């Protein structure tokens, strides 16, 4: 337990020295602000920016609801550009340690390999969640300010789903890191796999309801305690545990 605490603390310290604690929340705040801003000022932007004469927005169109705006922020912005930057930020979680020789240094001490992996997963997951939550909170406040009230429980459910998905992506990157050696291929492969895992369940939701990405393709007004949502959460947790177990097995076999 003490080694776990020390290793996790070291990761946070390193994130602080790399300015990750600063730029990750800032980036997510910028992402979270973008969607409400674009929807709010669509008319003004179309009328005044660029040479878009003749384009009009249907004046009878339904006013965007706050739930739609918020879920578009999380499922659209956060899950596309946000996911790319998140994976870029932690794709070197094992690879950089391996390249600097830090892994040899740590693993020749009395540190269990499982504890080492778990501390990597926990600390990078928490750093990513920290940035993501700050961005989501900003987006929620702005959405409520401009588009009317939104039930905090629904917003919390959407944020919770995305947090689980983020944790899954961290464990996926950890698993891929045990197969590949260099950081950039790890990042690209985990990005491709996670995008596939989001795309496939949204194409065939009836069959692939147990995939982790299925959480993100639920309709945005699903309540927390509906059965489809509970099944999604439980299957996502099981997937995270399975992938962590698999990477622990892989990591035990490889000799460093």
């Amino acid at each position, binding site marked *: 337990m003490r080694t776990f605490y020390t290793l996790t603390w070291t990761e946070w310290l390193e994130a602080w020295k790399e300015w990750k604690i600063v*730029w990750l929340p800032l980036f997510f705040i*910028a992402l979270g602000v973008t969607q409400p801003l674009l929807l709010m000022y669509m008319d003004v932007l179309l009328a005044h920016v*660029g040479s878009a004469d003749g384009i009009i927005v249907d004046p009878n169109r339904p006013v965007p609801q706050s739930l739609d705006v918020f879920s578009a922020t999380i499922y659209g912005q956060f899950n596309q550009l946000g996911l790319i930057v998140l994976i870029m930020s932690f794709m*070197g979680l094992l690879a*950089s340690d391996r390249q600097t020789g830090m892994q040899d240094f740590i693993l020749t001490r009395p540190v269990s390999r499982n504890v080492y992996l778990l501390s990597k997963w926990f600390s990078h997951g928490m750093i990513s969640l920290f940035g993501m939550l700050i961005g989501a909170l900003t987006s929620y406040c702005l959405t409520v300010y401009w588009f009317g009230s939104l039930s905090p429980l629904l917003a919390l459910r959407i944020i919770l789903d995305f947090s689980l998905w983020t944790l899954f992506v961290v464990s996926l990157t950890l698993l891929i890191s045990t197969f590949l050696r260099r950081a950039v291929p790890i990042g690209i492969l985990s990005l491709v796999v996670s995008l596939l895992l989001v795309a496939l369940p949204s194409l065939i939701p009836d069959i692939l309801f147990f995939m982790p990405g299925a959480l993100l393709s639920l309709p945005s007004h699903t309540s927390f305690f509906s059965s489809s949502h509970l099944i999604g959460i439980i299957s996502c947790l099981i997937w995270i545990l399975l992938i962590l177990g698999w990477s622990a097995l892989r990591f035990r076999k490889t000799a460093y």
Partner: protein
Amino acid sequence: MNTDFSALSQIDWEQFLPLLLIYISINLILLGCACIDWFRRKDRIATPTTWLLIILLVQPIGSILYFVLGRRMTA
């Protein structure tokens, strides 16, 4: 290029301004962090001038690219 600057006066600045300030300040903080870090490490980065140009010119993403990629590419 749009040279019709009268459009700027038609925008509802009163609602726009707080948000614009948020955006500009986020960008400035990012830019400042990246510049400070670049200045400290400019002898160790592989191609420092290129990265400074990227930070300054590719405004929203450039500094993040520097933090993720540039500062690890040591000479």
